[in-house]
Structures are given as structure tokens and as C-alpha cells.
């Protein structure tokens, strides 16, 4: 049993996310700069499944300001902006239940596949959707 498992281990790929660079770069920022210039490549994360509930995407044009999403949101992620009749979402509070997507009568909200949302600032531009 144990030798079989060890032997198979040689040929199986790890199921976890691999380290983004092949080897530890001397400078992480330098490496990221190179990635932006297109000189280096990042090892992509394991893809998520099709129905994955990630960060909520918001289509501002479609939104009619009915506030149904605010009523059903269990984590009070969504804030109403009365002067524009649009919404603002604070992603750090989100529990990713996607109930707002189900309730939206015009389909202005949708699930995205994005899940790498760590940041030092909870009001970073990536974490406030409006």
C-alpha cells in the first residue's frame, strides 16, 4: 500500500495551487513588473468550477435602483446612492451567496469567477463595486 502510494506520487500533479513563479524570484516586485511587461509568465491558479460564486459583477447601466438586492443581502454589503439611484457594494463584507443575483429583476448583477481578493485596504478600488 505505502510503496504503491509513494510510487504514484511521483507521477501525479499536485492538486493545490502552485507557486505563481517557477522559482522564488530575488525581487517579487521586479518579477511582477516583468509580468506586466510580458517578459515573464505567472503559473495560473487552479481554475474554478463553472458555477463558482465569486465576486459579484455589477452592470451599472442596467440597474434601475429598485433596492431588492439591499433587502435580501444577508451581510448588508450593498449601499444605496439615492441621488443617482444606483448601488455601491463593499466586497469585503460579502458572503458570496449570490442571492442578489437571483433577486435582481433586470439582471444587472452577476456572478464572476474572481476570487483572489486579498488586499491591505478594505476600500481599495478592487473591493468597492459601483
Amino acid at each position, binding site marked *: *500500500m*505505502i510503496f504503491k502510494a509513494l510510487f504514484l506520487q511521483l507521477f501525479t500533479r499536485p*492538486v493545490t495551487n502552485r507557486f505563481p513563479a517557477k522559482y522564488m524570484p530575488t525581487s517579487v516586485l521586479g518579477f511582477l513588473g516583468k509580468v506586466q511587461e510580458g517578459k515573464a509568465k505567472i503559473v495560473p491558479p487552479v481554475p*474554478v*468550477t*463553472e*458555477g*463558482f*460564486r465569486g465576486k459579484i459583477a455589477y452592470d451599472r447601466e442596467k440597474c434601475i435602483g429598485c433596492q*431588492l438586492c439591499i*433587502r*435580501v*443581502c*444577508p*451581510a448588508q454589503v450593498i449601499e444605496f446612492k439615492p441621488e443617482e439611484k444606483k448601488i455601491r457594494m463593499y466586497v469585503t463584507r460579502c*458572503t*458570496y*451567496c*449570490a*442571492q442578489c443575483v*437571483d*433577486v435582481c*429583476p433586470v439582471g444587472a448583477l452577476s*456572478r464572476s469567477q474572481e476570487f483572489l481578493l486579498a488586499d491591505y485596504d478594505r476600500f481599495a478600488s478592487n473591493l468597492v463595486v459601483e
Partner: protein
Amino acid sequence: MREKVKPEEKTEELTKACPTCFEVPIGPIHPALKEGIRFTFWIEGERIRKVDIRPGFMHRGIEFMGTKRNLIQVLYLAERICGICSISHPLAIVQAVEQAAGIEVPPRAQYIRVIIGELERIHSHLLWAGVAAHELGFDTLLHYVWKVREPVLDILEDLTGNRIDYAIPIYGGVRRDVPPEKYPKLKDALRYYRSLVDDFVNFFLRDPSIEARTRGVGVLTSEEADSLCAVGPTARASGLRKDVRQDWPYFAYPDLEVKALTPEDMGLEVRGDVYDRIVVRLLEVVQSIELIEQCLEEMPEGEITAFPKVAALLAHLKKAEGEGVGRHEAPRGEVIHYIRLEAGEEAPAVWKVKAPTYSNLMPWYPMFRDQEIADIPIVAASIDPCICCMERVQIVCDGKAETLLKDELLRLSWAKTERVASRVTRQVSPGRGG
């Protein structure tokens, strides 16, 4: 008002009853525990003579929070009562609300609820098996079990969109269908688990060291289990054929004809010890696999929810008046939700939750009687609570306090396995035994 008993008075009284005992408190607080709990053991030599359990440290006021929100928000709050039974609480509350508001659920939705619930049982029991192996000092087995637990989590993510906190049930149905395209992948996973059953029986039930550490440890007789109202695998391991899915069938369970399983179903004599609890949980994994296969075959076509529009559901729930009770057999036992709705109010007037660990607290008293200190981790883990209350142990001896960390308790447990193992096997040491 309840009569107040000062903790010191109670301690004094118990100390008087056993003058040669050491007092060993464990707990009371660990943030990862759903019910923060304190054990106080009275120990004579190595033996536990008496135990006192004090719950109530981690009260989060979830039920109160629920009465300030509308019912759809409450559903997601219920999901977060427990991280591992993250579908059991929603399944219980949807039953309560559907009963109170008189909502009919389409049959296909009932089957999907059963499938997700049984998948959760597989993952929860595997998680428990890993934890139990760790408490005994078999870390190889812990890593093995948690490795084979991954496929079921992947399946759950594929079906629902999340590994944990699936957000699938809603009042009147489910939010996502299980389309026929996904059957093959689900069946593959079930076949994989079926092929593992023999391995599990070998690793857990035929291993002499595990048998020596768990046979006759933490015994709960069937009379005690009955009178203390044990639920779930804890009760069934003591020989009580008690299962909500059998006694009060709900969802699609009446069609599936679930039978409560006890060690007798494996041809073993019921002794009600930790070993029997392992047996019952392994049997239930097999049972869950069978139930899901049966569901996939018998699942009817049709609607998955009675209210395709969530806004209509909200309006219906606002008008509803009445009360309802929902019961579900969670992996740990019976979970009960009671809810009362008032017309014109979005929030429930009353919401009461009873989690299975609550019923399984009292059986701890007979289980701990006359056990050794090194058996505390496995006996406490055997009812499948959140074991994190083992964070800190304080031994008070002659007025001196000595703090024992969880590592120390685990080390004691592992050392005992090593001692026992060297007696029963050919010098297999734990962790390396594979």
C-alpha cells in the same frame, strides 16, 4: 429567574465528595468552538472520577439577530451557525418556515436537498475520522483521510458553487438544479468512495492499536443513551435505532426507506464505546453513498422551486402567519429549528435552534467516568463536537496552578497509543505505522 449558584460553592461540594481527587479544568473558551465549553475533571491518580461540564461561553445571539432580519437573510445566518453542518441548519429552517407558511415543495427539489445533505454527511464523517485518528496519534491516517475527503468537496463545489456554505436550499425549493450532465462526475466520485470502504475498514477497524485504544473506552450503554437523549451516531453506536430520517421521514426520505444503523448491522455486538462510534460512522458513509445513487435513479423531472421569483417569495412570507418545526438528521444528530411568523412582519417573531451537540453533552458524563487522562481527547472527540476546546488544561494541585497546553494532552494521548501499540502489535509506533 433561575437560582444563582456560585461556581465556587459547586466546586467545593464536588471536591468534598472526592477528597483525594485533583481538579483538572479544561477550557473554557476557544474562539473556534461553536459551543465554548469548560470541562472540570476530578482525577484520582490517572482515573477520572467525576466530570463537570459548563457550556454557554460562546453565545453569539444568532437567534436574536435573526429576529431583526427578513427570512431570506435569516437563511444565510442559519447556514453560518455551524461550519461543518452548513446545510443541516438551512435544511431544518426551510422545513420550519415551509410548515409555518404552508409552502409546497416540488419533488425534484426534495431529492436535490437529500443529495446535498448526504454528500455533506460523507464529508463530515470523513473529517471526523481524520480528527479521531489525529487524537489517537495516527497522523498518517489523518492526512490520508483528509486527502480522500477532497473529491467530495470538489463535487459539492461543482454542484453548488462553494466547498462549504453551499447556499442551496431556499424556502419552497432549491436554488440550483443538479443537471443530468453532472451525474457521471457524481457517480464517479461515489464509485471512488465505494472502492475505499475496504481500506477504511482495514485502517480503522482491523488495526490492533486503534482497537486497543477505543474498545471499552468512553462506554455509553443503551439505557444511558436513551435516558440522556443522545442523538445521531452517538445514540446509534449504543444500539438505539434512532434516526430522524427513519422515524419522522421528510424530504425524499420516505421514498428512500432509510434504516438507522447500529454496529449490529456489521455483525458486531453493541458495546457503545468509541470503537462502535467509528463503526457507525463508516456504515453511514456507505449508507449515504447508496442513498445518493438511489436519488439519482429515482429523481423526477420538474420544477426545482415553488417560487421562481424571489420577490414573490418575500411577499408570500410577509403575509404568512403561523409556527413551524423543522427537524433534520445532521451528521452529528438531530437538529431542530422552531420558527413563528407573524403576518405583516418580515422578521420571524421567534426563532429557536437546537444543535445536535447540545443533546450529546449529557452523555459525556457517563462516557468520561473512570477513563484515563490520556483518553480525554478521543472520548471528547467521539461525539464529534468541535474539539478545539482542548486548547488549554489547567491542573490545580495544592493551590498551585499548572497550565497544560493542548500539545501536552495530545502528547499524553500519543504516548499511550505507543505503549498500547507495543503491547498489541509488532512494535508499530504511531504516526509511522501507515
